[in-house]
């Protein structure tokens, strides 16, 4: 059997064994319900609060400002709908600004709010996927209640000038939400310095377990819950608390805090090696996203004359797991909206490939990819009728 290399860390990551070790007691021995007042419950409650403190610490927030949720999608939904509904119940206006390269859960939430009578502005991006803070400034009007911009794109990895946008929003008195599911735990985030009011972070993108995420909600922010019930998480997310997973999330945060500096340096080096290698070895290949302002683990290319799904399956046959923005691999048969937003034509979006690195990727793996990929592209180009001529 060929070697297996997982290069899809942006989709999800394996759970770090250190995290698993921390989690296990909370499934068997310390299984209490945090709402119970007996010692089992209190033990779980204490673990929950300690975890909250750790997660808050990684983003410079107070522990009371962290709401644990079930997924980043839920956090984003809560942020957008919660703010919008709270404002509506106070009789205020309803204008929300998002970017055109948000994750589908933000896109779709905004679309739903549009049907509920809110006005949505989708900011365009430049060819690197960057948002111009000036555009944000221009788009904010009297009725604007929320600006939601993805911190780092899940597809092309571009990191937005969050600090500047945060400053603008603070000046204009508009809530600012950022979806940091891809960036949290990978690059430093400080909610106070960046003037963020709401922030989404996810556990399974940073070597924690799936099924847990959090939303940072700045003290004093008016927000409505989506789930009503027993009043867990300060009444903002009623549901029995998934203590085991939250403990894992916290442990993943601890590890990230300790190792972030070194890890970023190492991955950046590997990333640049991969980018340079592909550009050198494969003609007619183009990097998507910004060359420097990008996540240390994200590489996204488009190759002329080949189709993404074919590439992914060929790579899979060679033991490499990757992902594509091609329409043929999506259920809707539409190419990725992010790639279209940065100005790629549909046929170019078809030929895109995302490789995302992570903790267990070594230089050897990168060398293997650089050895295999050119052959695959060459083979697919040989089949393609377009080789050697522009269309």
């Amino acid at each position, binding site marked *: 059997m060929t070697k297996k290399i997982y290069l899809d860390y942006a989709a999800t990551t394996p759970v770090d064994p250190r995290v698993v070790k921390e989690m296990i007691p909370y499934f068997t021995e310390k299984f209490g319900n945090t709402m119970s007042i007996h010692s089992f419950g209190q033990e779980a409650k204490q673990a929950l609060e300690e975890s909250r403190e750790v997660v808050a610490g990684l983003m410079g927030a107070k522990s009371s400002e962290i709401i644990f949720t079930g997924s980043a999608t839920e956090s984003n939904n809560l942020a957008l709908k919660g703010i919008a509904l709270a404002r509506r119940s106070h009789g205020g206006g309803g204008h929300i600004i998002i970017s055109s390269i948000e994750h589908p859960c933000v896109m779709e939430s905004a679309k739903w709010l549009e049907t509920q009578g809110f006005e949505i502005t989708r900011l*365009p991006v430049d060819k690197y996927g960057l948002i111009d803070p000036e555009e944000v400034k221009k788009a904010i009007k009297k009725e604007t209640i929320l600006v939601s911009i993805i911190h780092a794109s899940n597809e092309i990895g571009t990191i937005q000038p969050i600090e500047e946008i945060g400053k603008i929003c603070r000046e204009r008195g508009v809530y600012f939400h950022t979806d940091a599911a891809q960036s949290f735990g990978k690059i430093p985030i400080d909610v106070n310095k960046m003037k963020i009011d709401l922030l989404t972070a996810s556990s399974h993108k940073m070597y924690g377990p799936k099924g847990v995420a959090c939303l940072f909600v700045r003290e004093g922010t008016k927000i409505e819950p989506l789930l009503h019930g027993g009043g867990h998480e300060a009444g903002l997310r009623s549901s029995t608390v998934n203590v085991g997973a939250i403990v894992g999330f916290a442990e993943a945060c601890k590890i990230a805090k300790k190792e972030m500096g070194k890890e970023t340096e190492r991955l950046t080096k590997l990333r640049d090696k991969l980018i340079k290698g592909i550009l050198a070895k494969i003609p007619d290949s183009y990097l998507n996203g910004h060359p420097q302002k990008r996540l240390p683990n994200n590489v996204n290319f488009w190759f002329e*004359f*080949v*189709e*993404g*799904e*074919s590439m*992914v*399956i060929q790579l*899979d*046959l060679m033991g490499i797991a990757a992902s594509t923005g*091609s*329409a*043929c*691999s999506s*259920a*809707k*048969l*539409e*190419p990725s909206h992010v790639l*279209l937003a940065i*100005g790629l*034509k*549909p*046929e170019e*979006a*078809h030929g895109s490939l995302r490789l995302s690195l992570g903790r267990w990727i070594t230089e050897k793996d990168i060398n293997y990819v650089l050895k295999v990929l050119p052959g695959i592209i060459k083979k697919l180009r*040989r*089949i*393609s*009728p*377009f080789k050697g001529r522009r*269309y």
Partner: protein
Amino acid sequence: MGKIGPYTQKVIEYFKHPKNMGRMKNPDGLGKVGNPVCLLPKQNIHINNSLRTIDKITLAERVLSSDGRYNKVNKATKRNYSGQILTIKNKLGRVQLTPDHLILAIKLPKGDKFLRTKNKKQLTPAWYHAEDLKKGDISLYPILKEKDNLNCIAIDIPKPKWDFKSKELPNKIPLNSDLLRLFGYFLSEGHVQDKPCRTFISFALNINEEEIVKDINSISQSLFNLEPRIKRLPKRKTIRVDLYSARLARFFKQLFGNGAENKTTPDFIMNLPSRKQTALIYGLWKGDGYINIMRSGARAGFVTISHTLAHQLKILLLRQKIVPSIYIDKKRKSHGVNHKESYRIHVGQRDSLIKLCSILGVKYIPRSYSSVDSWFDKNFCYTPITQIQKSNYEGKIFNLEVFDSHSFTSEAFCLHNCGDVMWLYIKVGKNKKGEEFIKDIKFETFGCVAAIATSSVITDLAKGKTLNQALKIDREEIVKSLGGLPIIKIHCSVLAASALSEAIYDYLKKKKREIPERLEKAHQRIEEEKKEINQRYKEWIKLEEKMHKK
């Protein structure tokens, strides 16, 4: 090794080791199909269930889509077509379409008809080509899901300057069951007189319909503070109820249209919660409906000459989980009276009739058990196809493009141009019998795994065959040789078959030989599609560039 991605072992095998791949120098024939562009889903819609009316649809109109919502029409296109078309009938209406059209349906497994009711949950709907469906298969009709609970409506007709004597109307009228009942009466029995100085609403009722007269009287007094004038005309066996208010009359005209043929129900009523709409159905049925529960086959019906109203009532009934059937009564003359073409909505199924009777407040104790052939779930009404007819058609066919996908055709229809391109080269030789056969064949493909595998397999299938045999290779044969393809990739096999027929077309054309009619038609269809895609693509690029200049 099992499946890779959604593909079978065979597909992967052909993908991994494609046969006959590459370019051919000096081919005898070359077929180019496909387009590297993925466009937004393209829709073929049959609003009102006929080809005749689709041409009347204009942009920005909204049509019911398979997600149960009204979606905007972005684009209406037409093209010439000549060839076979299918007429598919079910209880809800009639659809005419081309055989390659995709329909949301359930194909029944072979065997007992009961399967569809007994094990209905196990049957999953999918998109099928019209030609693959048979009588008895289940078609799906979306249930309208738009909801907007309006509580009040305002009469937005200004009072004329010179109007000093007409009675003051309330500014806002509560949209309650009384008002909806009145709307129902108006839709079935009312009309608006609109002449200068003589503008009023008039209901023409049968002499026996005293009950309705009373109801209109009380509603009008309580809601509009208007006392209707009631004229009994025993000789003509009618009662006329007139509401004298020009503003109200114009308001009604604006809402419902005038003239029995043009009556429609406005959107805000169609979108009310289904609970509220029962009052409207009550009013409609009391007016133009009939119900006969005494006879052995108990039934209820509603007759109108407004095509739109008939289909709107269908949608309203479906929301109440009542299965209607629509029949068309042709134009006729009886007893010296001209009857226009009318639409009869028939409710005969036991469960549906029980529901309808409870809305109408009629006691109905069903005497017999009848079989159930239609059922509902949250999103769809499932009814069997009752008839499929083939016929030939020559003329224009119409296409609509609907905002945000869906409708009677799928996302799957966009598959014809999901972004695959195939080029097929052939070399033709002569066998011992003197027949021309495919001596050599090569392909080049830009596309996904399925596209590469299908083009590879078709070269395998075609090699060595005579031209006539090669032309007979169709979608099914390709899919079969690959051990199956995922449903959303079926179009790749269609593309491969088209590429081969195009290559043969090219060869015959080069040799200046006679081209079979079927081939010529297929070629024209492909050319038209290409043109259309290129046109749309240009528009798209223009738009995109404009966006980025901003």
